[in-house]
C-alpha cells in the first residue's frame, strides 16, 4: 500500500529517492498536497483510477512538508531562504512584517481544488504568478537558487543567494515549473521586494471584450507602469466582493497602479485622462484594490464547483479574439488577466457530446494557434478526464524529445512524479 514518507532533512530525502530508484518504485512528490488536481493524475497515490492514461502506478508519496521554516531573511538584501515545505502563508506574513512582498504575487491555486494553503516548493514547482506578472515576472523570475534531490538520489544545488549570478547553468529556472518531475526541491532562495506604499485601481465600466482589450493594451503601452490589467465580463464582475465592481451592473476593466504616494497620484490621474473617453470610470483605493486583485489572482469567480477550467496563456493583445473563437464552439465563461495574456475559461453546463472526448482541448488550442500561439492547460477536470486529455500544451516532436532527454538527465528511471506533465515523462 502507498505510504506518505515525511523526511525531516535533506539526507533523508536522498535516502528515500535512492531506495525508490533501487526498487523502481515511483514517488509522488508533495508539499502541502493541495494541488493534486493540477496536472495529469498520478495513479494509485490517492485513490485515483489505476492504470489508465499510461501513467505508472505510484508506490509512495514523498511529503516534503517537514522541510519547513525560513532559514535566512535579510530584508535589506532583498533575499529569503526557506525549506521547500514552508507554507507560503508563513513566508508572505514574514515579508509583510518588513514592508516587503513576493512581487510575483503567487496565486493561491489550492482554492481551485477546494483546498487552502500551499508551500513555497509548490509555488515554485508550478511557477505560479499573479496579476503583477506583467510587470514583475513569475516565480521563475524571483528564484535565485535551489537545492534539491534528483531522481538519481543525489542532493545538488544551483544558483545562490545573489540576484546577479551567471555561474553555471540556471537550473533554478529549469526546476521552476517542472512540477516535481526533475527533482524533489528541498530548499529555495527567492528575491523579495518592497511592498508598494499605495495602490489605486481604475475601473472602466461597461466595455465589451474587444473594447476592453484595446483599453488594456493602451494602458500597458503607456509609461504609467500598470501592474495589473484585468477584464471581467458582466456575469463575472457581478460576483465580486467589492461593491464598486459587483454593483457596476456590467463588465469591469481594471487597471492597477502601485508605488509611492505622489507617483501613484500622478499616474492615476494620467491614466484617467488616457481612458476617460472609453467609458465611465471608477476608482478603488488600497483596501478594495487588495480584495479585488486577490480575487483575480485566485480566480475567485470560478473557485466554486468543479466545472472544467482552462488556463490559457495567449499573445496578450489577442486575448479577446481567442475567447471569441472558443466561445463560438464551446459555451463557457471567461475573464482576462495580464492585459489579455492570461485567460481563465470555464466550460459551463454539460460538455457538448461533440466535444466530450477532449473537454474542449481541440477548440481551445486551435483558437490559440489561429491567434499567434500560446499554451493552454486544463487546470481543473475529473481525474478520469485529465488522464485522457493532454492537460499541458502538447509539444512539437523535436521539443518533446528534448523534454524527455532533459527528464532523463535528472531522473533516468522516471521515479519522480512520472507522467505528471506529459505521458512517460
Amino acid at each position, binding site marked *: 500500500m502507498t*505510504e*506518505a514518507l*515525511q523526511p525531516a532533512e535533506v539526507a*533523508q530525502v536522498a535516502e528515500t529517492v*535512492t*531506495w525508490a*530508484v*533501487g*526498487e523502481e518504485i515511483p514517488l509522488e512528490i508533495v508539499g502541502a498536497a493541495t494541488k493534486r488536481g493540477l496536472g495529469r493524475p498520478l495513479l494509485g497515490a490517492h485513490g485515483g483510477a489505476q492504470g489508465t492514461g499510461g501513467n505508472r502506478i505510484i508506490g509512495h508519496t514523498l511529503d516534503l512538508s517537514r522541510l519547513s521554516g525560513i532559514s535566512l531573511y535579510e530584508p*535589506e*538584501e532583498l*533575499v529569503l531562504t526557506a525549506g521547500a515545505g514552508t507554507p507560503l502563508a508563513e513566508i508572505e506574513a514574514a515579508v509583510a512584517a518588513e514592508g516587503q512582498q513576493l512581487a510575483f504575487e503567487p496565486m493561491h491555486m489550492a482554492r481551485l481544488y477546494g483546498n487552502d494553503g500551499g508551500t513555497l516548493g509548490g509555488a515554485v514547482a508550478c*511557477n505560479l*504568478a499573479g496579476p503583477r506578472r*506583467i510587470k514583475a*515576472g513569475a516565480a521563475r*523570475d524571483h528564484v535565485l537558487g535551489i537545492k534539491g534531490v*534528483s531522481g538519481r538520489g543525489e542532493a545538488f544545488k*544551483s544558483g*545562490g*543567494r*545573489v540576484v*546577479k*549570478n*551567471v*555561474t*553555471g*547553468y*540556471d*537550473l533554478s*529556472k*529549469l526546476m*521552476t515549473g*517542472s512540477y516535481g518531475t*526533475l527533482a524533489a526541491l528541498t530548499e529555495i532562495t527567492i528575491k523579495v*521586494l*518592497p511592498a508598494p506604499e499605495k495602490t489605486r485601481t481604475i475601473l472602466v465600466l461597461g466595455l465589451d471584450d474587444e473594447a476592453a482589450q484595446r483599453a488594456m493594451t493602451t494602458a500597458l*503601452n503607456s*509609461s504609467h507602469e500598470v501592474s495589473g490589467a484585468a477584464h471581467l465580463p458582466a456575469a463575472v464582475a457581478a460576483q465580486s466582493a467589492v461593491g464598486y465592481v459587483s454593483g457596476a451592473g456590467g463588465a469591469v476593466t481594471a487597471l492597477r497602479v502601485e*508605488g*509611492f*504616494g505622489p*507617483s501613484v497620484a*500622478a499616474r492615476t490621474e494620467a491614466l484617467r485622462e488616457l481612458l476617460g473617453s472609453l467609458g465611465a470610470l471608477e476608482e478603488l483605493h488600497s483596501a478594495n484594490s487588495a480584495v479585488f486583485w486577490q480575487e483575480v489572482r485566485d480566480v475567485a469567480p470560478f473557485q466554486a464547483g468543479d466545472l472544467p477550467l482552462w488556463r490559457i*496563456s495567449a*499573445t496578450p*493583445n489577442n486575448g479577446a479574439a481567442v475567447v471569441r473563437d472558443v466561445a463560438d464552439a464551446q459555451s463557457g465563461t471567461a475573464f482576462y488577466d495580464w492585459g489579455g*495574456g492570461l485567460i481563465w475559461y470555464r466550460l459551463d453546463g454539460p460538455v457538448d457530446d461533440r466535444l466530450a472526448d477532449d473537454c474542449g482541448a481541440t477548440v481551445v488550442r486551435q483558437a490559440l494557434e489561429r491567434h*499567434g500561439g*500560446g*499554451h493552454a492547460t486544463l487546470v481543473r477536470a475529473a481525474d478520469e478526464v485529465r488522464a485522457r486529455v493532454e492537460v*499541458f500544451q502538447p*509539444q*512539437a516532436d*523535436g521539443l518533446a524529445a*528534448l523534454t524527455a*532527454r*532533459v527528464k532523463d*538527465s535528472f531522473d*533516468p528511471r522516471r521515479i519522480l512524479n512520472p507522467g505528471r506533465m506529459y505521458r512517460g515523462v
Partner: protein
Amino acid sequence: MKMPDPDQAVLARRAEIIVAMRTIVPDQSVISEERELAVYESDGLTAYHQLPMIVVLPETTAQVSQVLAYCQRNNVKIVPRGAGTSLSGGALPLADGITLGLGKFNRVLEIDYDNRCARVQTGVTNLAISQAVEGDGFYYAPDPSSQIACTIGGNVAENSGGVHCLKYGLTTNNILGLEMVLPDGEIIRLGGKHMDSEGYDLLGLMTGSEGLLGIITEVTVRILPKPTSARALMIGFETSEAGGQCVANIIGAGIIPGGMEMMDGPAVEAAEAFVQVGYPLDVGSLLLVELDGPPAEVDYLIERVRSIADELGAVSIRVSQSEEEREQFWAGRKAAFPAIGRLTPDYYCMDGTIPRHRLPEVLSRVAEMSKKYDLDVANVFHAGDGNLHPLIMYDSNNPGELERAEDFGSDILRLCVEVGGVLTGEHGVGVEKRDLMGVMFSEIDLNQQQRVKCAFDPQQLLNPGKVFPTLHRCAELGRVHIHRGKTRFPDLPRF
C-alpha cells in the same frame, strides 16, 4: 589555460571540411586564410588567443542547421560567436573547431507594439533594438556597457545585465521566445509572444548557457515604454562603509532605483582625470543613484535619497538639474574601464557578486591582496545588486605579472564565494573562471549540469572546454548505479 587536445583526425580533414561548408554557405562565407582568421583569434578577454580551424558565417537558420548536422556527423567542434565582446573567453576559438560567426543575422524581423515585443535575429546589437523602437517611446531594458557592439544572441548566451538590471531585470527576465538549432540540426522554437513558455523552462536554461547547448538564431524580446523622466544623485562619502550603508538604507526604505553604482577612491580619481565631469576627488566612495519614472515620483524620491545620504554624513551631494548633467554624472562611470586603461598598460576586470553587506570586509581584504601581489586595484561596483568589478592593473610586458594578476583575481573570486557570493555576476564562466567552478560547486552539482548538457549535445561538440573544469563522457555520466534490495526502506515517519 588548458583546452581540449585538438582532434588530429579532424585537422587532417580540414580541406574536405572547407569544401563541405562551401556547399552549405556561399564560398566567401567560409574563411580559411590565416590572415583573415586572425580577426577571430580572441574575444574581449584578450589574454587568451587561438586561431580557429575555419570560420563559417551562415545567414539563415537552415544553413546553421546544415552546418551543425554536418559537424555532428563528422565529429567537428563548434564555437559560436556574436560580436566577440565576451569578457570570459566564451568565444575563444578551438584549433580543431569551426567558429560559427552569427553577424549576418542582423535583421529586426518584427516590432509588435501591441504586444510590447520585438522579434530580432541573433546578431542584432543590443543597442539597435532600443534604437529601432525609441521613436515610438519604447526601449529594451538590459544595457550591458558593450551594448553598441554586443549582439542579442550573445546577451542571451551570457544572460547579460547592465546598470539598470536592479530595477528592470537581466536578459533572462526580458525575453519571451527563441529559435535555436540543436547540435543534430533540429530547429526548436521556445516561447513566443505570450508570457511563460510551456513545459520545462528551457528558455531560462538557454539564457546564460554560454553557447554550450544550442545555437540561437532568433530572439523575441520584451520592450518597455520609456520612463517619462530620470534624474540622478552623485553622493560622496569618506569611506566605502558609509557608501555601502547608504545603499542598504535606500533599499531598506523601499526604494529600488533605476541604477545605483559605486566607485572607490582610485576609480573616481581615474575617471575624473579622464573625462573631467566634476567628481569630488577627496572621497572614499562615490555613489550614483538614478531615479526614473513620472516627474512627481522622481522629485519625491530624490528628496528621500538626499535625506538618507545626509543622515549618513555624506561629504558631497549633487542632484542633476538637467538631462545633460545627468548624462555627465554617468559619463565618468561609463568611462571607468578606459580611464583605468590610461593608468596601466593592461588591466584585468573581475566580476564576482557578493551579499551587499559584506562589501566593506571584501574591499579591505582586496586591498590586502593588492599589497601581497604588489598590483594596484580600483573597484567599480553595481551597488544595488552586489556585483563587484575590481580592476587589477598590471603590465604583461613584465614577466610573471599576468600570472600574478590572474592569481590575484582568483583570490578575489574565492573570497566572493567565501562570503556567500558567486564567481561571476554577468561576464560568464567561459574559459576564465572554468577551473574555479569547484570552489562553488560540488562534483555532484557539476555532473548534474553536464548531464543537462548531454541532453542537448551528446557528443559535446558545442563550445567544449568552456564552463566545466573536467569533461566527462555522456555515457559515463548517464549510468545509474542500482542497489536493488541493498538499500533498506528508509526509516522515516510515515502516515
